[in-house]
């Protein structure tokens, strides 16, 4: 496979994880527009662990995920009080503060960035990305997911029938943060250089776009969205000057024509049913 396609696939894998991190949180009815911050935390922490502490990558990623998950849980507590757009705005504020922190964090380069990581192949990226995707898909069939859906659909009712909505929402946030952190660690080691600007508002928006466009009701939707967001700019190269406008138009179009995103349950059923029938 050409090195060009390999790197595009690696990018998709990283974006897939970012999208999943938003998807998991979205499943409980919370929109997080700040997962770029968790990605950044994962990127910086895992890089420090491998470069300065000489830890193997797998261990570094696991530790970063756990730390980010913890931070996510802490952030989720006050976030419980906020709904809808306000929660989204709070996550934006949080992400800006994290980015500002890394910009001033001279120990890891500040605005000058941090480098020294060992390059990892697209295979390694997809080992993690694919594995987590499968894990989420399995999770979707579990009782835990049902509880998350219940919280998503009507939180008051869910509380009334005895579900611990607090625990559900906080766990979702923590899980999302952990997945985003792994995306960050893989990003850092694929690019071998990171700087605070990589993890800003734009990154968080990319994650949300991947989920919304690809399919916000099923986990594989994040995969479709990630592939779309990475490969589409390459396909649109001939209209370089108007690429961004074309992309914006596509976003509006998809939202108008197919709100749930490209992939949804009935489409999956149609695809798999077809295969069974054949």
């Amino acid at each position: 496979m050409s090195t060009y396609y390999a790197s595009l696939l690696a990018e998709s894998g990283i974006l897939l994880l970012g999208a999943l991190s938003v998807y998991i949180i979205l499943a409980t009815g919370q929109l997080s527009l700040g997962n770029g911050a968790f990605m950044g935390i994962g990127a910086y922490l895992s890089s420090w662990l491998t470069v300065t502490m000489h830890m193997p990558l797998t261990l570094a990623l696991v530790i970063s995920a756990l730390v980010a998950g913890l931070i996510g849980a802490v952030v989720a507590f006050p976030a419980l009080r906020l709904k809808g757009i306000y929660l989204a705005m709070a996550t934006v504020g949080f992400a800006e503060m994290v980015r500002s922190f890394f910009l001033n964090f001279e120990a890891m380069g500040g605005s000058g960035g941090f480098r020294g990581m060992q390059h990892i192949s697209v295979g390694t990226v997809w080992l993690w990305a694919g594995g987590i995707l499968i894990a989420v898909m399995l999770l979707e069939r579990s009782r835990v997911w049902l509880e998350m859906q219940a919280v998503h659909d009507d939180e008051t009712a869910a509380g009334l029938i005895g579900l611990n909505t607090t625990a559900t929402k906080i766990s979702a946030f923590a899980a999302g943060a952990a997945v985003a952190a792994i995306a960050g660690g893989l990003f850092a080691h694929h690019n071998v250089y990171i700087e605070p600007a990589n993890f800003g508002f734009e990154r968080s928006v990319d994650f949300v776009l991947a989920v919304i466009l690809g399919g916000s009701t099923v986990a594989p939707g994040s995969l479709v969205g990630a592939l779309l967001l990475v490969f589409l700019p390459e396909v649109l190269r001939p209209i370089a000057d108007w690429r961004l406008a074309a992309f914006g138009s596509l976003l509006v179009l998809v939202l108008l024509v197919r709100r749930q995103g490209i992939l949804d349950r009935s489409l999956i059923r149609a695809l798999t049913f077809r295969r069974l029938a054949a």
Partner: protein
Amino acid sequence: MSRIKSNLPHILGILAVAAVSALPAGSAQAQTREIHLGAVVPSSGPFAEWGRSNTVALKLLEQQTNDAGGINGAKLKISILDDAAKPAQAATSLRKLSGDDKVLAIAGPLTSSAAEVAFPVANELKVVATSQASSKPGTAKQNRPWAFRNTIDEGVLAKTAVPYFKKAFNVKTVAIIFDAKDATASTVGKLIMPAVLKANELTIANDNDLLSFNTGDLDVSAQVTKLKSLNPDGVVIAADYSQAITVLREMKRQGLIKPVVGASQLISSAILKAAPEIPVIAPATFYATMKGEAPEKFTAALTPLLRKESGLPKDIEPNMFDANIYEIVSMYIDAIKKTGVTGKPEDLEADRTKIRDYMTKLEGFPGLGGPIGFNDDGDAIKAFYVLQGQNGTWDTKVRGCSSAPNHPGC
């Protein structure tokens, strides 16, 4: 059963179309021998203007070369890809040019952020990449032997600019303000300038509390008011010219008319309009009104093409990055002519290595501002000029050279 529409072929069709259109159009260079070079520039995004003017400069060079008979009889083709100043896109553009289009060498990427990610890829793929604008200290140094930069480390430039600044305006104390979000500007403002200022026995009025702002900030009134209260003889603005303009205008508005000194990032025609009565001292390797046969010819040829280009302002002039990228590709062409590069697919690896060795050993290449070579860090050894921008024009004040030990000077 018939109710279920056959979506699968539908989806596959869309994906197939997308995949096919993403495949590179097979470069049929079998018949006429072709020399294929690549360039990565930001044609969209926040630096779109630089990328587009770079593209015009490269197309000019391509045409000039082919009109003069090509390179040893072969036609020159320059493929230009857009990285939108995004590091990931710069890396994939480099991979595409190197792996799919199999170019012999690459010019770009432009920004240091993009270079930091693309240079390691150049080393991985063993193809030369030379940046036309990156001046963040150490970017090429960390990525030897395949990364080069046709720019001078800002530390070297400051060592000549500051003494002139001190003498010309009788400066004793300075205050520093820098763009905290810009890596090069931060390094200049926090490390390079303070060191050079102190070496020249200048006092930094806000040594423990350097002022900063962020790229894109609209309002720097608070910072300028504080600058004013320090009452310095001169001001250091470490920022790209588009951001420095904001500071200069605020200085003028608040009546802080003091001379300004900065890094090569300040060089542009736009900054001359910001506050014409404030003298701006900055180092440059090229500017549009430069005297000399080579630069004047270049400017005369390029300016009408730039002004004709849609999407560029009507009063645009060639800038330092245009000159730099023109020089870079000219060096590649020279390398190909002189080192026996064949351009044949089976010689790709050998050809690329020949270009790398040429660049490593280069000295005295006729650039637009004087002779060019490269030092051990991969940065350029070339002549530069300390310019004073005032009342709408740049004037050359001092000529310097970024010479390095064990390498010939300018």
